[in-house]
């Protein structure tokens, strides 16, 4: 009886660690995406904001989730290095006008053509930790150690993806993912973390949606 209560409580606790994720997709028109398996897409992180950086780990996670789409995926760093210094935080085009001007340079255009890149996806966003509460303290000594207390914090991931088409320098769509959840740390001699995979959920949802975006509708 005691065992079942313990198991039910644990399951309830773990169940409470799920993230709430929503995803929105917007396309400026109803035109069908031209997708060719010979062409590629590159997912790039925006890094020009002062107080955060769209982290590379998230970009590579989303790129990884897009495997299996009907288009190739070029790794971010490979593309940025091949076209250095035109996609650095200081120089990366923020709008389609600037991109059009950049692609008029034959040296830059040839680098893009060599890699057969058709679409650029700009990812902008971050994961934040808010509403931290509770306290936990740990002590270690020659006789042993342990942690006591309870702590909780909320995490939220908000990322927006903007898809640019390099064939006609137009915007093909926008996707936005919002994910939030609360994590707990229980100190009962050993610290027991009950972590909500907010960022992982955001990556997985956005990656799946982008994969659908770049797949031929059957």
């Amino acid at each position, binding site marked *: 009886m005691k065992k079942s209560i313990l198991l039910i409580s644990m399951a309830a606790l773990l169940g409470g660690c799920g993230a709430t994720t929503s995803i929105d997709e917007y396309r400026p028109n109803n035109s069908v995406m031209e997708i060719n398996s010979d062409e590629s897409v590159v997912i790039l992180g925006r890094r020009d904001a002062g107080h955060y950086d769209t982290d590379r780990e998230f970009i590579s996670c989303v790129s990884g989730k897009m495997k299996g789409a009907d288009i190739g995926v070029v790794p971010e760093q490979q593309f940025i290095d091949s076209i250095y210094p035109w996609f650095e935080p200081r120089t990366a085009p923020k709008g389609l006008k600037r991109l059009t001007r950049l692609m008029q340079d034959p040296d830059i255009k040839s680098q893009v053509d060599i890699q057969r890149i058709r679409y650029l996806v700009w990812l902008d966003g971050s994961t934040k930790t808010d509403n931290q509460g509770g306290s936990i303290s740990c002590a270690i*000594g020659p006789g042993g150690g342990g942690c006591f207390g309870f702590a909780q914090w909320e995490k939220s991931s908000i990322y927006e993806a903007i898809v640019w088409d390099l064939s006609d320098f137009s915007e093909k769509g926008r996707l936005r993912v919002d994910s939030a959840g609360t994590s707990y740390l229980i100190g009962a001699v050993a610290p027991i973390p009950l972590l909500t995979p907010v960022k992982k959920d955001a990556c997985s949802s956005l990656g799946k949606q982008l994969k659908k975006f770049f797949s031929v509708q059957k």
Partner: protein
Amino acid sequence: MQITKIHLIASLLALFAITGCSSSAQVQVERNFPTVVSKPKAVSASIIFNDEFKNYVATPSKNTTIAIGSAQTLMLSNAFAGLFNKIEFVQSRDQVSFENALVITPLVQEVQVSTPSDTYLNVYEVWIKYSLDIQNAKGDQIDNWFMPAYGKTPDSFMLSKTNAIEEATVIALRDAGAKLLLDFYRIPSIYNWLVRERKLGDEQ
């Protein structure tokens, strides 16, 4: 006897754990940088990389050192090669062999680092402040151009302070290359020098 040994081991482990949390960082930046995509102009230049610049070790705080000498030499060599079609790299002024060229000596003015504990932002930041002493072949100064570069990297849970500062420094060095390529020919005194040299060339 047995208990004393256990106490000693436990105390040593606790000591290692505490020293592992110290905030000092000795960073050695050694990376390869990509070649630049840029069409160099028909201008000759001699770049002076002296030993101080090539072996530069920044000390932004008493607990942090960043050895950027070889990385910045490599990065700026790459960037300068994208600016001038005729270029030589020398160690001192007396080794300059070009007759009608710009003579550029880059210098590091200052390196600054800020960590999440300084700013309460979740990023590590590095600023490298360069100055380029630009002269003509005769030794007349054309300009002393201030060139700041900036790099930041997110603070990751598993990223050590050393790795984070190295990552931010690499981004700052790449930013220096980007700024140089983007802004060098926009410096008014360089633009005027180019116009004057072209006029002289046309007259001769």
